[in-house]
């Protein structure tokens, strides 16, 4: 079954088409790497998938249902450029808040379990404002994974992270992929992304230039895709 399906997505900013008729499907348990230059439309696409932005035309479905429905949104976990946790709240309060927003049955226990998993249980009552960069990022990762999302949407996940957070995230992503979750990520870090990805999509000035399985030659030579399908 397709976990995520985008059908003929257009997005206009005024008269300018930022996305032009993009269609792709991601089967359950696959990991799609969205590649493309800055401004190609990767973030716009991800925001549409996450329900943060509406497509001008076309439809996104999650397991066959409209992606904007509350039920679909509770199956999505997002990790964007910002860490999306509150500076004035403690680590525990932050995770409890999101557990409640997702309607999880035992917010406190879930939050604690994730603090442990990301190595933050010692500072659980510390305010995020006082956290180091790496700690904040690990908390953000916990926030995104907390409700056991079946689909993970990651916007440049590795760019802002420090080494330890990258390790935590990569571990979680491999675990997620192997347990049948679907991952879509936009990225610049070709090597890290391609190792994890099972499929690759290249967006070029708002158009889908390539979409297919990740092949051995891409892994051997990360620039292969850009050379063959990128802009002339």
């Amino acid at each position, binding site marked *: 079954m397709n976990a995520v399906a985008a059908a003929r997505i257009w997005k206009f*900013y*005024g*008269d300018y088409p930022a996305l032009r008729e993009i269609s792709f499907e991601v089967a359950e348990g696959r990991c799609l790497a969205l590649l493309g230059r800055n401004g190609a439309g990767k973030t716009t696409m991800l925001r549409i998938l996450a329900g943060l932005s509406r497509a001008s035309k076309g439809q996104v479905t999650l397991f066959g249902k409209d992606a904007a429905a509350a039920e679909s949104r509770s199956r999505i976990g997002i990790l964007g450029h910002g860490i999306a946790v509150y500076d004035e709240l403690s680590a525990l309060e932050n995770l409890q808040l999101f557990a409640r927003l997702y309607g999880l049955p035992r917010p406190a226990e879930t939050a604690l379990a994730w603090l442990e998993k990301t190595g933050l249980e010692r500072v659980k009552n510390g305010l995020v404002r006082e956290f180091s960069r790496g700690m904040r990022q690990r908390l953000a990762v916990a926030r995104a994974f907390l409700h056991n999302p079946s689909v993970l949407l990651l916007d440049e996940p590795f760019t802002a992270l420090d080494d330890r957070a990258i390790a935590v995230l990569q571990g979680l992503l491999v675990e997620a992929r192997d347990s049948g979750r679907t991952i879509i990520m936009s990225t610049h870090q070709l090597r890290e992304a391609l190792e994890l990805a099972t499929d690759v999509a290249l967006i070029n000035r708002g158009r889908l230039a390539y979409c297919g399985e990740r092949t051995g030659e891409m892994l051997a030579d990360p620039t292969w895709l850009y050379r063959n399908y990128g802009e002339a």
Partner: protein
Amino acid sequence: MRKPVLLVMIGVAGLLLVRNLLVMAQLPDEVMQGAIFRIIFFHVPAAWTAFLGFFAALVASILYLVRGNLKFDAFAVAVTEVGLAFGAANLISGMIWGREIWGIWWTWDPRLTSMLVCWLLYSGYLMLRRAVEEPTQRARVSAVFSIFAFADVPIVWFSIKWWRTQHPQPVVWGGGSMDPSYWNMLFLNWIPFLLLGLVFVAIRMRQESAKREIDAIRRMAHAI
């Protein structure tokens, strides 16, 4: 609309205005007010045009939110601007009349006050538009604002009316009935106002579409 059509409309509006002015000159002065009473033939149709503009903006805003077509957004700005221009004409003519009759430029008469509040509300609409850079977001945000503003108009109207009836106030137009020939004059003078309004709307819509085109080209250039 094409240019010749617009020119014809302006011509017709001008001829009608000249004709109306000549007819007005023939009318006898009003007993209480003298010559200045003729300002009503501009004052009242201006208010009608303004409210018609704001109402059209409401309809266009709802249509934009439903359909997502930026033409409706362009129409909404155009009619709001026309509404503001005629609203200003209404306010200024009211002030001139007040100065002649009561010796004061401004009085907190419920009608004048309501028009002033409306005017402020809709000038907020234009300022809001200037603060948003991306055309689609601008259209969305300003459509919502326009709906809020229009919902506020009748509420403002009634509240100010109630408010003022609890305070002493000068009576406008004597409260009496108007001669039917005056009513005819009001409507006859409304026609050129509407024609001019339409011409402005047509021109502004063309400008808005050009603006969108320029914006798209600029974005395209940035993307490359």
